[in-house]
């Protein structure tokens, strides 16, 4: 029996197909995120009006001049949403960075010293994971006051626990790898093994959890702003929804241009990052 050319091609195709889906989803995520980043960076040029200026009558229906109409004080909604991408993305990225810094530090220390120090730290992580999320977020945000920095801090402080766990489990396995043993047998101090052999090896995993944290942070920011706990000066997608809610737009035909676009964008941004995270994870740990 000899393999024919057709069979050969079928086999090659099957091999390729196995690795295709995550790539496609990853590219889709990159396209979404890329588009949003471009929008955020070039917002002043893309937006037709200044979103903080009253340029028309309030509650205008969509028209050629104002594709999404105007809000209750006569701001152009399209411009508001375009500028809103800046806040959403920035809060997402910065909060995720905060979370990752805390998470990696805790995770690496807890993983490298798993006995007393590690288990104490992980109990702290457990507590944070157990706490009911949204109520805590609201209480903290209300207590600290409404500002962009506070929003970022509150979100960052609440979502570091998951990256910490993921990184700790990786470090636990890394610390007993033979090359770590080898470094220790050479007389390397702990700082050396951690910085040279452990942290670089968690980088890939950390990237994955960073992207996922961004996705989560964007949702949380939207939630906070929707509840009216965001920075009152900054226009974000969440705060647009907040005003839409307070002005009753959810119950009028205005929901189509006032509620739907920011809502979809929140979903899209979160989805974009989540897709990238999924594709990264598939690459890092294909057997998941």
């Amino acid at each position, binding site marked *: *029996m*000899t*393999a024919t050319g057709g*069979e*050969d091609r079928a*086999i*090659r195709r*099957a*091999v*390729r197909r196995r*690795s295709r889906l995550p790539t496609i989803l990853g590219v889709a995520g990159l396209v979404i995120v890329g588009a949003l980043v471009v929008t955020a960076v070039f917002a002043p040029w893309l937006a037709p009006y200044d979103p903080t200026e009253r340029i028309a009558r309030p509650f205008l229906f969509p028209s050629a001049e104002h594709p999404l109409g105007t809000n209750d004080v006569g701001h152009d909604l399209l411009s508001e949403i375009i500028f809103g991408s800046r806040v959403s993305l920035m809060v997402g990225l910065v909060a995720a960075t905060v979370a990752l810094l805390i998470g990696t530090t805790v995770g690496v220390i807890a993983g490298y010293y798993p006995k007393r120090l590690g288990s104490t730290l992980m109990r702290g992580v457990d507590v944070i994971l157990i706490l009911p999320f949204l109520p805590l977020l609201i209480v903290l945000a209300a207590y600290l006051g409404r500002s962009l920095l506070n929003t970022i801090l509150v979100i960052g402080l609440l979502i570091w626990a998951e990256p910490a766990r993921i990184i700790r489990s990786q470090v636990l396995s890394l610390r007993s*790898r*033979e*090359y770590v*043993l*080898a*470094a*220790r*047998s*050479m*007389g*390397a*101090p*702990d700082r*050396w093994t951690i910085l*040279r*052999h452990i942290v*670089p*090896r968690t980088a890939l995993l950390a990237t994955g959890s960073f992207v996922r944290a961004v996705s989560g942070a964007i949702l949380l920011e939207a939630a906070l702003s929707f509840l009216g706990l965001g920075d009152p000066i900054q226009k974000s997608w969440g705060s647009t929804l907040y005003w839409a809610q307070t002005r009753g737009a959810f119950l009028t035909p205005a929901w189509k241009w006032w509620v739907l676009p920011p809502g979809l964008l929140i979903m899209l941004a979160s989805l974009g990052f989540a897709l990238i995270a999924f594709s990264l994870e598939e690459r890092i740990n294909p057997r998941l």
Partner: protein
Amino acid sequence: MTTRTAVAGRGYPREGASGEPNLLEIENLMVRFELPAETVRAVSGVSLSVAPSETFALVGESGSGKSVSMLSVMGLLPSPPAVVSGSIRLEGREVLGMPGRLLRRFRGRDVAMVFQEPMSSLNPVHRVGRQIGESLRIHRGVARSEARRQAIHLLDRVGIPSASIRVDDYPHEFSGGMRQRAMIAMALACDPKLLIADEPTTALDVTVQAQIVDLVRELQAEYRLAVVWITHDLGVVAEIADRVAVMYAGRILETGQASDLYRATRHPYTSGLLRSIPRLDRSVTTRLAEIPGAPVRVVSELAACPFDDRCPLAADGCQDALPELEAVGPEGHSSACIHHHEMGSASSLWPEGTAAGRQDSEEQPGDVVVSIRDLRVHFPIIRGMRESRKRAIRAVDGVSLDVVRGKTLGIVGESGCGKTTLGRAMVALVRPTGGTIEINGEPINHRSGRHRKVVQMIFQDPFSAMNPGMRVSDVIAEPLRIHRLADAGTARERVSELLTQVGLPPDSGGRYPHEFSGGQRQRIAVARALAADPEVVVCDEPVSSLDVSVQAQVINLLADLQARTGMAMVFIAHDLAVVRHVSHEVGVMYLGEIVEKAPRDQLYEDPLHPYTKALLEAVPVPEPDYDASQRTRLVGDVPSPADPPAGCRFHTRCPVAVEGLCSTVKPALEEVTPGRWVSCHLVSPPAG
């Protein structure tokens, strides 16, 4: 019990040498793996046949295609990426391309397979007996109670004591040797005609390996089994193989009756393999013969002799065409070498070379570098939340040793004897429970710092001991950087100097570890261990993960480097023959204790402790028809170090144990003759 129905096949099976039709016929088998990056040609044109109740050994290094060709007989290769072509006939019936339904019917019933790692081939959540009965229930449809009865019978047959109780054990309750016995029992369940054993003893200790070889030999006679024994070790199969095929780069290079192949070798590769096995019955004054280079990985179709670049006989014609097997001797002895008639004796083809300034052991003692006194390392057993204070794994339990400058101390023992823990304690990777380790008179300090550079370690698996994300130059320079021994410029110089010393091109530092072969990686590990100019290097099984042809290279390298630098070495291994080649003094460990310690030649010529004797006898000899019946085989496995036997720890397996004495009184390690220490009641210390 079984009725072996004649299989109506396509055409008649050809007849084997014995006159019976061949059981297995493989013709022009090709296997390639279509990987996303490249196509790997694992098997390129293998033809072989196995007659009923014959033992056929398939020998080759890793990547030679030996396992892949047998897995394709079982139809166990994943497709994709594997593409198999050629012809495999079992009792005349074509197996290749057979639909899964039919394939499953003969798999496990007519052909059974035993794998290398018994723990991973047994399902950890099912009882052993149930797993053995499984194939009976599938193929014979017997009832559960009947399957269990037969499982007990089979376990008993493969030498599991009190089989009717152990049948309900889970795999983790079995020792390594017992698991492999259980795997064999499982394979035999349906009374197969062909047993494929894929490196069945590689993961086992020498003493257990000998037991398994004996067991298979017995069972083969009893069940009239044909056995295909896949191995990388020509030594193991010499005693049992009727015929041997040596594979390399997916091709058979030489095949024939075992006696012809071992005694009248007609291929330089076979002869090189045979020469590079360290042997107990040869002198150790010279270096081991080594095959240069590393096994190849075949990516494009072979057009020339694959062994050409490593072959001492390589001449002009070798690159021109792919040599086919041609008859070179009686009874099917054939070789795929166009220069086979030029083969002289193995020793002229693969010279052992002269030892460059290697001292002999009969010199005056030098100064002691490492001094270990009453070292104890116990690991607490953690049950639930608390660690129990009373119960502990006594990995090392009262060991005293001296390592002398410029000399090598060999440590031998079976797995679980504590030799690795001892080595790790010396580089401060584990904290001793008691006793002292002094280096140059100073107790070893577990804190990191410059003082730690005097002792360095070489690990068993060089690949996992190197950070895969670091370049080789950084790997080697790591000790220099840790101990701040060099600035950037001198470090680079030192790295290329070290690379040259270990026989690698000095500019290979820019590459990553995965780009090197196993032997080269171990060379890199050696270079790294030497970087900090240590006084002692602890080598933990440094060659056991390497291919046979490469082992000799690394052993010779270590010996040369020792002669050049005057460092002391601690050479930990389970292989007595390897240890003999490098050591000046040898300590034999059993369950955390040294049972015998002696200068090398004394120990090997006249072992005193029964355990040393047993270990030496278990070493396979690469001679067919070697009379193995004289040997005393050790029974059973090493007891748990958590719960060592009272009295002499070896008495449970000792063939000469005296009841009442050995089982109650613990023998002391006493000096029998100067420099020679034995701990056995039956070896009398000198009078006075």
